[in-house]
């Protein structure tokens, strides 16, 4: 189409995202008046649709701060970072970072990490399917365990937090309380994986995240264990490896 058409469309797009913008001059109202209310329908549709999409994939984050706060925060995010793809699954990946840098949310310091956990859950839900290694295949690996490298399930994600993010997420999802009660003082690391149709969130033991991170980066079992031990002297290789195996995180070796 013509340059005029692109300009007309751009003016509409800009005005629909900016609540303070005037209604584009190209639009005709009844009796020659500017169709302010009518244009606002589009603005509301755009914002409500995107805010609802975020509310749907960050439900615990929403519960922690309440509907009104969440919607106002999400609205600011939408204005600043509208989607770049018509596939809305991809929308919201940097919302946790936005929350972390959003001053009004600083009173809830773990909020961004809860959002990171929810995003990992969302990505795992829609990720490619793959068959985890069977117990037999895993048992057969014992003979060459030292230099084995694992291929992770495409859904597998690590979320590391200085807060007890899994406990907060579980309590929020279960009770719908705004403020979780007793919380562990230490941080929690999560392995999120969807071995079949259910997304699972696994709390990693001490050193487990460093171990899993090294394995995900393609290091051998021996090197990954050494990396974990270097940081966490109490790292239990057998327990960590068994946990990852049970979670269905491995789909192959190389």
């Amino acid at each position, binding site marked *: 189409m013509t340059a*005029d*058409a692109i300009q007309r469309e751009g003016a509409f797009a800009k005005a*629909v995202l900016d609540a303070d913008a005037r209604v584009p001059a190209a639009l005709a109202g009844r009796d020659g008046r500017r169709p302010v209310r009518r244009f606002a329908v*589009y603005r509301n*549709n755009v914002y409500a649709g995107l805010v609802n999409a975020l509310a749907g994939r960050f439900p615990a984050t929403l519960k922690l701060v309440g509907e009104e706060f969440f919607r106002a925060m999400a609205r600011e995010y939408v204005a600043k970072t509208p989607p770049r793809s018509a596939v809305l699954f991809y929308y919201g990946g940097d919302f946790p970072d936005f929350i972390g840098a959003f001053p009004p949310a600083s009173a809830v310091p773990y909020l961004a990490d809860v959002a990171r956990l929810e995003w990992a859950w969302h990505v795992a839900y829609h990720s490619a399917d793959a068959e985890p290694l069977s117990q037999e295949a895993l048992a057969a690996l014992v003979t060459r365990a030292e230099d084995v490298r694992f291929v992770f399930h495409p859904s597998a994600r690590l979320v590391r937090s200085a807060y007890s993010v899994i406990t907060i997420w579980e309590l929020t999802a279960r009770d719908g309380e705004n403020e979780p009660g007793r919380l562990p003082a230490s941080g929690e690391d999560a392995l999120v994986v969807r071995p079949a*149709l259910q997304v699972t969130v696994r709390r990693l033991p001490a050193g487990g995240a460093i171990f899993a991170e090294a394995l995900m980066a393609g290091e051998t079992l021996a090197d990954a264990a050494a990396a974990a031990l270097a940081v966490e002297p109490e790292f239990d290789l057998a327990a960590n490896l068994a946990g990852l195996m049970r979670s269905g995180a491995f789909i192959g070796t190389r």
Partner: protein
Amino acid sequence: MAPSANISQSPIPPRGGVGLKPEHYRDILDGAPDIGWFEIHAENYMGAGGPPHAYLTAIRERYPISLHGVGLSIGGAGPLDADHLQRLRALADRYQPALFSEHLAWSSHETVYLNDLLPLPYTQDTLTGVCDHIDEVQNAMARRMLLENPSTYIAYAETTMREVDFLREVVRRTGCGLLLDVNNVFVQAANHGFGATDYLDDFPLEHVAEIHLGGHAEDADEDGSLLLIDDHGCAVPDPVWTLYRRVLARTGPVPTLIEWDNDVPTWSALFAEAKRADGLLGACSMSAVPELMAAT
């Protein structure tokens, strides 16, 4: 991806169908309801895997589906998103939909996706642009597309063509078919001050291969006059059923979808709406030969 071995190419029957919602996956698989077909929003099945594809695969083995895109931006001023078109084609190859439709609207500008069906002016210039896009889509998809009439809240000063004339000309130039959304006609008529029946009398019904029915909400303009919002958030209202009967009297039975996308009801409430459409479709197939069929 190759289509599943268990899906047949059976066409969509001229019966009531509903939009497929995750809330109803289990009701459908466990209850095996006697319903003609399901429609999917293409963009909801563009993830790599997981439960959406697992359920859709199982449902597709039991029912025909139609593929309804909401993100292609057919009415956009810029070029179509080639990646998005590719994703649509992959989805069609995998699930073999019997019908494929998109909207007379735009939703993306340059790299920003606005997630709404936005209006365009009807001019010779936009007509050319829309037809070029539809040619490109039909080539890329290797199948015929149905174009859906929109619901809008505003009009453009530069518009020179009536919507029905615009649609008729698009069909003539591209060979696409039409998806008639009766609720959109009702909303358009109220919002722009014309008669819904006049619009339908001029509509090129002979090219309609699918019908949508849905609900809308009532709001008000600055001067207090009625403004209808196409929100698909309730049952099909009686005046829309009345218009639908009027359309069927002329077209004969056409596959008819109940759209209820917000405040999603229970499966039984949605199914009852499809049954109501089935009743009217059955009645019209047994009554006198519809006027369009008689004319051919």
